[in-house]
């Protein structure tokens, strides 16, 4: 235990840098995927052929291992193997595959009578989409966002195997020092803590965005 504190004291800067890099590398892809998933999910919700294409593309992306994808992207994009952009693109693809699906599921789950009522009250399609349909779909969409976020936080570590930053570097450091446990344990604790904090934050956002869920709770 004291060894862990000593390691933290002497390497505070390194650990902090790794943590900050980890946060960026994990959360930027989720944010990009979330923004892209809303229109794509709406498209998939609306057009049946788009649904087949999106679901097939999603399952194909999932079968490509992350480490393999990280190493293939530079060849496809012409980027350097060490460029963090590869990590961002790879994780965006995984997150997108999940979020398009959950967004469409969420929109599917909205009661059509509610939408008809909104139309009858004079809501135009765009306003109806943003003020009625999307808010009602949010619980399902945000559940997908939670899964994608937690998965990303744990997946970024893999990037350390090919020399990109993040908490995974603490694991490879421990490995290089002959399985020296302090950096490994610090990396594990920080990574899990980060995932839990991100998860709790999204739950809080969900509670804020869906006040009717609490009002109706029995």
């Amino acid at each position: 235990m004291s060894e862990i504190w000593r390691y933290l004291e002497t390497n505070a800067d390194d650990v902090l840098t790794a943590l900050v890099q980890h946060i960026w590398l994990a959360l930027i892809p989720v944010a990009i995927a979330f923004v892209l998933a809303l229109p794509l999910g709406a498209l998939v919700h609306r057009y049946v052929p788009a649904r087949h294409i999106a679901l097939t593309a999603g399952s194909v992306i999932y079968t490509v291992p992350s480490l393999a994808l990280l190493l293939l992207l530079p060849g496809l994009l012409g980027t350097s193997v060490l460029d963090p952009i590869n990590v961002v693109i790879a994780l965006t693809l995984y997150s997108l595959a999940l979020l398009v699906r959950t967004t469409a599921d969420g929109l599917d789950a909205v009661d059509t009578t509610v939408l008809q009522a909104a139309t009858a009250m004079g809501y135009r399609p765009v306003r109806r989409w943003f003020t009625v349909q999307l808010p009602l779909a949010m619980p399902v969409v945000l559940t997908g966002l939670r899964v994608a976020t937690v998965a990303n936080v744990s997946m970024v570590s893999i990037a350390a195997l090919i020399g990109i930053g993040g908490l995974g570097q603490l694991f490879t450091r421990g490995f290089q020092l002959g399985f020296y446990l302090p950096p490994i344990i610090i990396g594990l604790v920080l990574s899990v803590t980060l995932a839990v904090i991100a998860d709790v934050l999204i739950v809080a956002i969900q509670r804020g965005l869906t006040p009717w869920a609490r009002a109706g709770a029995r």
Partner: protein
Amino acid sequence: MSLDYLLDAANWSLTSPDGFPQRILEHLGYTVLALAIAAVIAFPIGLLIGHTGRGALIAINLGNAGRALPTLGVLMLALGLVGIGLVPVTIALVVLAIPPILATTYAGIQSVADATVDAARGVGMTEAQIAWRVEVPIALPIIIGGLRNASLQVVSTATIAAYVGLGGLGRYLFDGLATLQYDQVVAGAIVIAVLAVAIDLALAGAQRLLVSPGVDGRGAGNRPSTVRPEPQPEPAG
């Protein structure tokens, strides 16, 4: 991208210790071992929790915590604790595979309609019979879905075995990276992806064989009431 390494016949020699056939077998070995151990641990627990409804909250939270664990970190921790070899790699992959199997087994068993379970009890089946002959067959599509998720993650993550000196398809990734032979990296990545798809298809085939036609809607009666959506996949490790 160069496919030279992948298409070089010398690399497909059956006898070469560094050829694709040998590496694929090693990779499959790590994967199947880890999946089998994870299933032996997670399936009975999921069955028990789903059947009795007790301990669900603990299981779900443990499962979620397990998902947040970076496998690379678990591997390094296991290596530090038990030393180098197959054991720490297997531990890391088992930890990775347990949450999806446990969660879907529990969810599948729990989703069996109460009326169906009551009917089984009503015709005099014992609790064990209800679990094995009613709940498991009906939940099987969901349970196998969880196994498919787990297998995708394990196949892709088994590459890290090569990072700590074992074999498997990860060898091509790390060796190619170390020697800057990019065509070797490309070959490894493609073979791993193809292997992942092949295993997923094999399990999908097993699902078709094992799941009763009455459950997945292929039966003559075609009652859709028992057909349930497959669980959502999760990103590969």
